[in-house]
């Protein structure tokens, strides 16, 4: 698996500089995974989060509903697009940037209600989460796989966005 995920991440990193070229050398994952982005592991916060989760309300749902539809491409991530606070969130931002996609991002670290609410909303347990025209696409793994397999270009074109990586 590690090999596979390494290649996946590698493909992103390389693509950043050399677009779609796929190079399988080693040594990337470390920086992607053990990146300096923040220490966010806080198991002790779990009880608080669960309490808030229990309070997932119609109001929260409505708010999130508006958020996911607020742009063609919306992501819920840790940190901001300029300063992602998690390797997975960073990967998502990198992929979208690589395709030249304009997107709106919400930082779940700054809003506990949204952080737990979005997981309920999309019935998906992890962050980041990606939405196209209000429709849930998936998390980091899925976007990566779509990117590698070329489906991302098609999915973007379905919502009227031309990827920078699309060949004329």
């Amino acid at each position, binding site marked *: 698996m590690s090999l596979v995920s*390494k290649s996946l991440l590698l493909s992103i990193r390389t693509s950043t500089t050399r677009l779609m070229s796929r190079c399988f050398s080693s040594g990337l994952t470390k920086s992607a995974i053990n990146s300096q982005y923040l220490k*966010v592991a806080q198991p002790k916060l779990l009880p608080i989060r669960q309490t808030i989760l229990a309070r997932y309300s119609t109001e929260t749902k409505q708010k999130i509903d508006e958020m996911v539809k607020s742009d063609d491409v919306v992501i819920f991530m840790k940190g901001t697009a300029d300063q992602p606070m998690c390797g997975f969130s960073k990967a998502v931002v990198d992929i979208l940037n690589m395709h030249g996609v304009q997107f709106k991002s919400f930082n779940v670290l700054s809003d506990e209600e949204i952080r737990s609410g979005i997981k309920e909303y999309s019935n998906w*347990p992890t*962050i980041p989460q990606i939405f196209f025209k209000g429709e849930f696409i998936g998390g*980091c793994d899925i976007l990566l796989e779509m990117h590698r397999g070329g489906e991302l270009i098609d999915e973007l074109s379905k919502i009227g966005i031309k990827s920078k990586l699309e060949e004329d």
Partner: protein
Amino acid sequence: MPVLQSHVENKLKENLNPIFLKVEDFSDGCGFKYNVFVVSKDFEGKGLLQRQRLVNEILKEEMSEIHALTQKCVTPEQWEKMVAENPNLSNENQVEKPNDSTKKCEFHQH
């Protein structure tokens, strides 16, 4: 092997009847971050999202403990192609592991 890891493996084995399964702990010991690679017939006819939803559902209880889970869910057909391209894939010993033991739990997906 942390209890959680074998537990995760067993659950996936029971529910997906996988042809190939690899659960890898990349947390350097804290036992809460996993790479999961599953090859199963159950993924046939399902998109990426549905496949991962299936795995998430199986690991629903464990997900509250797991900090990060990356998944690669492929069908037997896809798997054959992958092995044809890279025979080392099916060989456990050839799979590289992250070797930086100084960092722990720097990020997680929850």
